[in-house]
């Protein structure tokens, strides 16, 4: 079988592989992880390249070996492997070890690129933005999240697979070299910046512990009882109400007792200091290998104790 005519995979074949690569993790198992998913994605190519039962069985066996990477970064690896399979089917000397070597060699570094970019930056940033819209009862939140994410993802799957297919082995150098490092670093800069904003803005933490309470003099607060009395007597005028609203807008207290809570004091010191310290404590605990679930339960315990002791509200 030395002089086989070379079959080129058509664009349709490659699109088929790209579509199937979306199901890479369907049968994720603790033994060989994404192995069946990988074979599943390769099947359209194997079907075109090999016709005998024996060749097909060998092809399947070759692609059912251990494989695991970031699901989207499997695409460039698939692209390279498609090229290798094409050449092998044409009679070139490419043994199983070479194909497995390419897969294993690429999956580690590429997973290290995909996790920080997709899971740690794009999804949290997009998710946080969408959540802020949703909390304002704006339906654009989920719609933008879904459309933008899938647009980025599908474009990434297809174009990196094509890149791998066209460039073959050279891609490893390209992806693990300068380009990907720049992308990762740039994404991390954006991600850290946005996290710095989210921490103080969206952590709900209210130290309701009263530090001082002062009884205000008459005239320093809005006397609602007085207003109610005027209204009952029919003496309330529009001008008077307008004056009251203006007083409220100017920050005149609405209750006769002015309470200063710990939160008020912290806010004058540095807004968001509480959430900042909490987040840094979590970072520290995670680095000490404390599991996130343990931390979450710990925080619930602190929340309950703080609520009962009236430190938090």
């Amino acid at each position: 079988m030395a002089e086989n005519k070379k079959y080129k995979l058509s664009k349709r074949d490659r699109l088929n592989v790209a579509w199937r690569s979306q199901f890479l993790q369907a049968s994720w198992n603790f033994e060989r992880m994404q192995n069946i998913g990988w074979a599943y994605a390769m099947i359209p190519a194997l079907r075109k390249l090999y016709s005998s039962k024996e060749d097909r069985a060998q092809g399947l066996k070759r692609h059912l070996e251990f494989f695991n990477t970031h699901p989207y970064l499997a695409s460039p690896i698939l692209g390279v492997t498609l090229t290798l399979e094409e050449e092998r089917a044409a009679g070139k000397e490419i043994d199983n070890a070479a194909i497995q070597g390419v897969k294993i060699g690429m999956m580690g570094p590429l997973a290290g690129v995909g996790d920080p970019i997709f899971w740690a930056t794009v999804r949290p940033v997009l998710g946080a933005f969408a959540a802020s819209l949703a909390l304002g009862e704006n339906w654009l939140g989920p719609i933008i999240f879904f459309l933008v994410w899938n647009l980025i993802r599908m474009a990434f799957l297809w174009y990196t697979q094509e890149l791998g297919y066209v460039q073959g082995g050279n891609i490893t150098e390209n992806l693990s070299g300068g380009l990907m490092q720049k992308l990762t670093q740039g994404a991390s800069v954006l991600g850290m910046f946005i996290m710095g904003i989210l921490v103080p803005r969206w952590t709900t933490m209210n130290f309701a512990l009263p530090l001082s309470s002062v009884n205000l003099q008459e005239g320093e607060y809005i006397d609602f009882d007085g207003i109610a009395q005027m209204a009952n007597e029919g003496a309330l005028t529009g001008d008077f109400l307008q004056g009251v609203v203006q007083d409220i807008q100017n920050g005149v207290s609405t209750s006769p007792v002015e309470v200063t809570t710990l939160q008020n004091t912290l806010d004058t010191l540095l807004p968001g200091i509480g959430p900042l310290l909490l987040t840094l404590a979590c970072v520290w605990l995670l680095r000490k290998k404390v599991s996130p679930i343990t931390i979450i339960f710990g925080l619930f315990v602190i929340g309950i104790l703080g609520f009962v002791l009236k430190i938090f509200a």
Partner: protein
Amino acid sequence: MEFISIILVLLIAFIAGVEGILDEFQFHQPIVACSLVGLATGNPTEGLLLGGSLQLIALGWMNIGAAVAPDAALASIASAILVTMRGASVTDGIALAIPLAIAGQVLTIFVRTITVAAAHAADQKATEGSFRAVEFYHLGSLVLQGLRIAIPAALILSVPAEYVTDALNAIPAWLTGGLAVGGGFIVAVGYAMVINMMATPKLWLFFALGFALAAVSELNLIAMGIIGVVLALLYIQFAPEFNQGGGGGGNSGGGDPLDDILNDY
């Protein structure tokens, strides 16, 4: 109407379970899943609000390597059912989401373990060169992952509404109040997980800058996003690790496509 709602919710639950393992379309993310359940049950606003709140909590839940994260799919679907169909409040839903996420995590580990059998069955059929059989075991495993969410959802749906409200009302005030306070804190864990993934000593500078700018409430997230992208592009251009050997020559011009794009800015 009720019947159609239940069918739709079970369908959404199945798709969320499928996506929880695939991690592609993101149907299992709270902001999508809870909103869909809200729409299907005729309480869209509650679903949307719950989805937004849970999304913030789940920001840092990611499957890395072989590690399995808390399960956003079961948390979103089950608490969305309780909120939109069983009269639980959004705050209750948030507090319930955490134990549900852990239950879902256990379930997905269970399914990922039994699919080892699928891998061996596929090996067997591969020796016969049967593409069909390999595809069957692959997609069959996916169905199991879908049922992993659809079955618990059906169980919750089969509990009468008054039991759920009674149970919720039986929770003492100190516990609900405390859980609400704790629920406000736990987004910090998600932030910390995301930060831990990215942080290097240099990058903490950008965190500090973001923290300081957060106090400027006139800057909304879109403006912040623009500032962040500008910072990132400037960083890539000027950071010494990307400019090695460019002592006098400026751009290296090594045929690096992103380099060329970035230099055009």
